[in-house]
């Protein structure tokens, strides 16, 4: 007597070759969830990082995103599996088993599979968490060995997420069993979605609307930071809707036109690529939209995180051009230098004499705008001696250096204010100097007082002469230090920390760099693994979908082989289909992400092109592995179609 359990066990064994990738994806993402929650609750790594790095919040957000992805993934994959098992579900009912029995049978199978995956995920998670911690420490630039113990709360949370997944998929299964008629179940793969010609006017309108929505989204993303939250929602909404219309209407319309023009002379390759795609256009539109959006998000996430991580040094250098700086403290500076030399550290020491005055930078677009502020006049010739990368401005002209300029608004907008005039008041008289342009970096460390203006030494001397004795006038001696050797710099930084142990806010390059590195290291760690989960999810969904379609088309391949088309001819059509199915969402997703990265670039001053390209290239390579898998699966089916 065959019990439900026995039947389930047999069916699972039979389906295991279809489930293995699903399993792998599920176990991978859930292991990751386990690791993230473990890290969130673990103090060991937290204690090693800078207190400003919010460790547990980062992992908590990552965990939530993971749950969302895993949810989308399981629901999509489960939908595909249910569709491919339609006939089986129908057969059970045909031989007289009740809907309740079938639903129960599917749910038992689901729960057993789920339990297996849960166990595997927790075991894998516990085993690989050490590896993950090592990777994380490496990214954070920390050294040391951390023992991470098995986290009970993490295991509990992972189980809860599983429970949620099982509940959702069980509901999905019940809906499938109870709401579809026998006829639906048996014709699931025969019935095409859309073969009726699209209505010309409506299609044209919707096709254009799709493009317009995407265009609007792109346009709006250009000035997203004006009203961040509202605009981000608008951009997301219009892009999602536009992408859906693009797949559902625009591309279908193009296919339809192309096919109609062929008037039956479609050819083998198109018969195997375009025709099956149009056959399932509705279902394809949904999944392609989903995959495009997931790809876009994943690429944006990874690219931005990598851009941050990649540019930490550059970004920190913009704020702190010198490793160490002392302001009007020659004694302190000297004793620091002696301490360094005692440790055998090579150091380049330069003294820069600057002048601080009061004055106002005029706005040519707004005559009444006049705010008096501290201006720091720095001599270009002396700075050049320290190795700074700059050009000496002509006499009487200044260049404003401000690393935080982009925080004050759009840089292109700001650049319209230059060249402008600087107004100095000395003893009732006003003197004007030309301010040529703005550079988005500092020429002296962040903590130097006043606005940093680069002038020739002669100009500075002239200003000192003119302004001496006015309120706020001050001559400042900067002692700047550069330590060329990276390892020595680390030691120097700790000496500096001890040297200036008082309450003052001090900045040294290395400490700042480390702190930002830890923040972005955490970011890239989370983003890279989340991105991987996105990628595996999207790749798997595509693979499952294509796998199901391949099986549905098996008879067609057999017929074609019998008609005398050989494997390579058929594969040509299949490869074209895979190229469309994989490339279309990837390229549109990538285009979306390029605009998203551009929009998000206001958060980062360095150029994001290079790190973003690297991230995209890696994403594409891994993505194509799934395409190759799919093509391999198809080739196997076509090869064995005759037997």
């Amino acid at each position, binding site marked *: 007597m065959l019990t439900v359990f026995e039947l389930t066990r047999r069916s699972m064994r039979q389906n295991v070759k279809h489930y293995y990738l699903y399993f792998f994806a599920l176990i991978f993402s859930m292991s990751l969830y386990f690791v993230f929650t473990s890290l969130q609750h673990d103090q060991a790594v937290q204690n090693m990082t800078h207190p400003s790095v919010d460790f547990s919040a980062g992992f908590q957000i990552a965990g939530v995103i993971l749950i969302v992805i895993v949810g989308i993934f399981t629901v999509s994959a489960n939908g595909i599996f249910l569709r491919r098992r339609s006939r089986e579900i129908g057969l059970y009912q045909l031989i007289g088993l009740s809907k309740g029995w079938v639903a129960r049978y599917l749910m038992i199978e689901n729960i057993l599979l789920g339990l297996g995956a849960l166990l595997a995920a927790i075991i894998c998670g516990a085993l690989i968490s050490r590896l993950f911690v090592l990777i994380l420490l490496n990214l954070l630039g920390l050294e040391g060995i951390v023992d991470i113990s098995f986290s009970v709360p993490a295991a509990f949370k992972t189980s809860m997420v599983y429970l949620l997944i099982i509940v959702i998929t069980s509901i999905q299964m019940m809906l499938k069993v109870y709401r579809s008629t026998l006829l639906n179940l048996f014709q699931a793969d025969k019935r*095409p979605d859309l073969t009726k010609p699209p209505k010309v006017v409506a299609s044209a309108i919707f096709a254009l609307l799709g493009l317009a929505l995407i265009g609007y989204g792109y346009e709006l993303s250009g000035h997203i930071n004006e009203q961040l939250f509202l605009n981000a929602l608008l951009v997301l909404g219009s892009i999602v809707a536009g992408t859906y219309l693009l797949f559902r209407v625009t591309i279908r319309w193009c296919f339809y036109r192309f096919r109609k023009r062929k008037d*039956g002379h479609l050819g083998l390759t198109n*018969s195997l690529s375009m*025709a099956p795609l149009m056959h399932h256009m509705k279902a394809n539109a949904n999944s392609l939209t989903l995959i495009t959006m997931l790809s876009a998000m994943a690429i944006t996430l990874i690219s931005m995180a990598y851009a941050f991580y990649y540019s930490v040094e550059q970004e920190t250098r913009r704020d702190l051009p010198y490793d160490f700086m002392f302001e009007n403290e020659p004694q302190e500076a000297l004793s620091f230098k002696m301490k360094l030399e005692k440790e055998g550290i090579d150091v380049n020491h330069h003294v820069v004499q600057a002048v601080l005055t009061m004055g106002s930078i005029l706005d040519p677009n707004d005559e009444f705008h006049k705010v008096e502020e501290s201006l720091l006049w720095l001599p270009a010739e002396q700075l050049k001696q320290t190795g700074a990368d700059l050009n000496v401005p002509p006499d009487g002209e200044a260049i404003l250096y401000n690393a935080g300029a982009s925080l004050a608004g759009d840089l292109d907008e700001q650049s319209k204010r230059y060249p402008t005039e600087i107004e100095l008041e000395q003893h009732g008289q006003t003197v004007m100097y030309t301010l040529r342009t703005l550079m988005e970096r500092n020429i002296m460390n962040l903590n130097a007082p006043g606005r940093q203006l680069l002038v020739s030494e002669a100009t500075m001397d002239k200003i000192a002469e003119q302004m001496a004795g006015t309120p706020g006038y001050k001559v400042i001696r900067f002692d700047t230090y550069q330590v060329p050797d990276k390892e020595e710099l680390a030691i120097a930084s700790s000496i500096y920390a001890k040297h200036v142990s008082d309450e003052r806010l001090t900045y040294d390059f290395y400490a700042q760099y480390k702190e930002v590195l830890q923040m972005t290291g955490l970011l890239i760690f989370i983003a890279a693994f989340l991105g991987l989960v996105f990628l595996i999810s999207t790749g798997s969904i595509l693979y499952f979908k294509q796998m199901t379609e391949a099986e549905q088309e098996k008879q*067609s391949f057999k017929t074609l082989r*019998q008609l*005398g088309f050989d494997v390579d001819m058929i594969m040509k059509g299949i490869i074209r289909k895979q190229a469309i199915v994989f490339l279309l969402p990837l390229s549109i997703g990538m285009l979306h992400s390029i605009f998203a990265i551009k929009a998000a670039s206001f958060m980062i001053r360095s150029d994001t092109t290079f790190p973003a390209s690297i991230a995209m290239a890696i994403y594409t390579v891994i993505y194509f592995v799934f395409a190759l898998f799919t093509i391999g699966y198809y080739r196997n089916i076509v090869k064995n179609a005759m037997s």
Partner: protein
Amino acid sequence: MDQLNVGETVLQARNVHKTFGTKGNAQHVLKGIDLRVTRSEFVGIMGASGSGKTTLLNVLATIDHTTDGTVLIDDADISKLSNTALSAFRRNKLGFIFQDYNLLDTLTVKENILLPISLSKMSKREAESEFTAIANVLDIKALSHKYPHEISGGQKQRTAAGRALIHQPSIVFADEPTGALDSKSASSLLDVMEKVNQQRGVTVVMVTHDPVASSYCSRVVFLRDGKTYSELYRGDKTRHAFFNEIMDVQAVLGGEHVDGF
């Protein structure tokens, strides 16, 4: 009819054997079959289930290999051809009609019919005129842009016939073409096949267990237990008379004329 029977040989099978399974558990399905088909013949192959008729068709149609013996089609020994050459051979020289139509669900009637010539060098205009001619004979011109799920079984099988004919093959192989059709659709398909055979001189080899279907043929070959049992020529007989003759042979063959029951 007679002048059509006297023609060049299109297909020649000599001492064809086919064995399935391994040595210990071998099943000898075809035990030395000889068959000659001449140009423009309409040959029916009959026999009870298990007599080897579908196996014979597969072997003749190059879908399966013989264990022993030779099959020549248009003087080419198909057992000596490589798989690639066999594919090309099927594509260029053979047409197929299957019991369950085997149309591609994703293609329209016209696209299905034009599929076999999709890789040939035929110009679009030629293909179009060939399609029109065949579609008119088969009476499916009006269905050109319909999908298989939108048409009846009989229409599907006529579409399949169109697909088997479009590239002007040397032989059309039909495997139980009426097996899934009701009697009305079946006779309309057979009428069409007879018409095509007579008007266009297409050579047809059809496997069937239905005496009505084989009564349309010009010759019926009976198989029994993997061997040729007997042969009947229609000659000038009416279809009805030929049908009765076929029934008589079937009765002798062992009363299994109601196949599968």
